[in-house]
């Protein structure tokens, strides 16, 4: 268990959907990398199935989805796809422009937190760190159920 926890957190920073404004995702990726995490960064326009594949192959603990235009509207569909692939231990954070009235749907779909513009570096890094621990321990619980 300690061995598993000692590994750096693996975070996927991505953008799904149609929009390509990537200034925010690049900066957040650099923040997390500088905080010692292993960051898998993708350019914009990823498909949901592409993200699921990447999460599986890269053994990701946390996904950060950046959205400037309206791509956050398909995040609930991504959450469904993750669940269907048996990846419910992976925590999801959304960053960017999400109008207040559209936040509820994302949180209800299981998004851990939405960071708006102006979120500070420390706030993001601290939250991702603690969320990573939860993601890992969630996984260990699953293993303990499987392994007698």
């Amino acid at each position, binding site marked *: 268990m300690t061995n598993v926890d000692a590994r750096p957190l693996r975070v996927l920073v991505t953008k799904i959907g149609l929009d390509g404004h990537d200034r925010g995702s690049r900066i957040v990726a650099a923040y997390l990398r500088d905080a010692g995490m292993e960051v898998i960064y993708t350019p914009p326009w*990823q498909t949901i199935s592409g993200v699921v594949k990447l999460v599986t192959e890269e053994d990701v603990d946390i996904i950060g989805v950046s959205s400037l235009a309206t791509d956050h509207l398909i995040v609930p569909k991504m959450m469904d796809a993750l669940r269907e692939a048996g990846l419910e231990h992976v925590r999801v954070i959304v960053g960017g422009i999400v*109008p207040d009235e559209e936040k509820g749907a994302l949180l209800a779909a299981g998004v851990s937190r939405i960071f708006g513009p102006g979120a500070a570096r420390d706030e993001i890094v601290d939250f991702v760190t603690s969320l990573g621990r939860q993601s890992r321990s969630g996984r260990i619980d699953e293993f303990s159920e499987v392994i007698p």
Partner: protein
Amino acid sequence: MTEIAIQLPLPGFEQAQGEWRSQYSRQMRDETPIRNRSGIEIQPLYSPRDWSGERYLDDLGFPGQFPFTRGIYPSMHRGRTWTQRQLIGLGTPEDYNKRVRRIIEAGATAISLLPCCSGFRGIDCDEVDPVLLGTCGTVINTTDHMDRALDGVPIGEISTAMNDPSPFTLLAFTLGVARRRGIDWRSVTGTSNQSDYISHFIANHQFYRLSLPGSRRVLLDHIDFCRRHVPNWNPVSVVGQHMQQAGATPAETMGFTLSTAIQYAEDCIARGMDVDDVLRRFTFFFDISISLFEEVAKFRAGRRIWARIARDRLGAKDPACWRFKFHGQTSGVDLTQQQPLNNIARVSIQAMAGILSGLQSLHTDAYDEAIACPSEETARIAVATQNILREEARLCDVIDPLGGSYYIERLTDQMEAEIEGVIAKIDAAGGMYKAAEAGLVQTMIGESALAFQEQVDSGERKIVGVNCYRIEEDPTVPPADRPDAEAMHRHVEGFKAFKRERSQNQVARALDALARAANSTDENTFEKVVEAVEVGVTHGEVVGCLRRELGFGHPLILA
């Protein structure tokens, strides 16, 4: 840039200046240096030792005279004010039409069209999650769609700017509409905004359409086609906006943009086109940040450098080619989601910077820009901001009103030196195409973006409502305006029916001809695009065909 060599005899100057300096230092003991966004240290005061009028004719001249520092036309805004060109794009073609007609009724002399992000990505509306359609632009995939979007819009009389990256299907649709309405293509005026594929590759979102070499080929075909058949159309808009939005400093942005223009001009020359013929129709598109004086200096320096590049480096003989015509858009990155009404103040200052710089056309952002597509009300305020600056603040009364200020002239010289340094760096890398391909420019922009963000995080750079003067709850945040899902559903269904009912033979033949042109060296791909959309080939099919033939893609995007 000319070195500051001239020292006007001013008896007593040095003594008075020395006294001021020591008084200033006593009051400002612990002052840390102040730098603008381009990294230039800003002094507390400028004087005749920073800039002298003896260089007036070489470096400034009169408006309409080389090197055009003070403006590209003799009468500038006093003769003809800038064009108010608001970007519009939302929902279905019918939604767009409603909005654009209202704008024309309100006196607009130019319009613009922003397609849906699905269009930017090169796909049609039937391949996209419907919840995303029309949220950031209008869904236009066929000539019929364009016909409905421009219903009652007098193309041929009103200038139309389209956000229309390679392979320029929106222009192809528009030419189809013109033909249906019996309008001569030679009277069609406007600009292919977003024709600058290098800026997309570096900093924006649309290069997902075609590979770099493919885009290069199609742009040249497009320029050549327009030159022959749509002579009043501006096929090239060199875009600095994306790069500054992505984090390039104002000086870097101007340097990259001018290097891009050099690249396109040299590509046209290599293709055998006449440089005078081509450069006459080059236009530029920039971001205007809130760093007011820096922006004014950026644009004044840009005009001067371009005039020299066009004449001396590219060899254009027609003075029209030396003129640096630009459209400015107030910077969205400077706007905040927090306390959005504050954005009205920010946009006013940005617009002022653009107007004082002598721009040719202006888009002012709506205050809800940082939240969603503008509503009618917020769009109206954005237009009113321009009207207030012109009619009430009377910013048009004097040409280049900041010219001659010691500060502005010194800063213009310094920005010029910075910009020329960037151009030299790109030249050393083999030009803008190679520098983009190698990732050099992207790295520079990424570093500048991170440096800026670190200043914001540390509080060194203050943004009201973000890292200072925050409030807990803001009741003024408007709800996001989303397209009507029912209407969008009908639009997509109509599109599917259209695809079923058109002549599949003609479509296949047109796509075949397009593919053949792409693989030949003497056929014009854009000509084939125009012919293809005429028989009902859709936007996504055109892009798909060219992607197969000319390459596409980003190695890191997973299918």
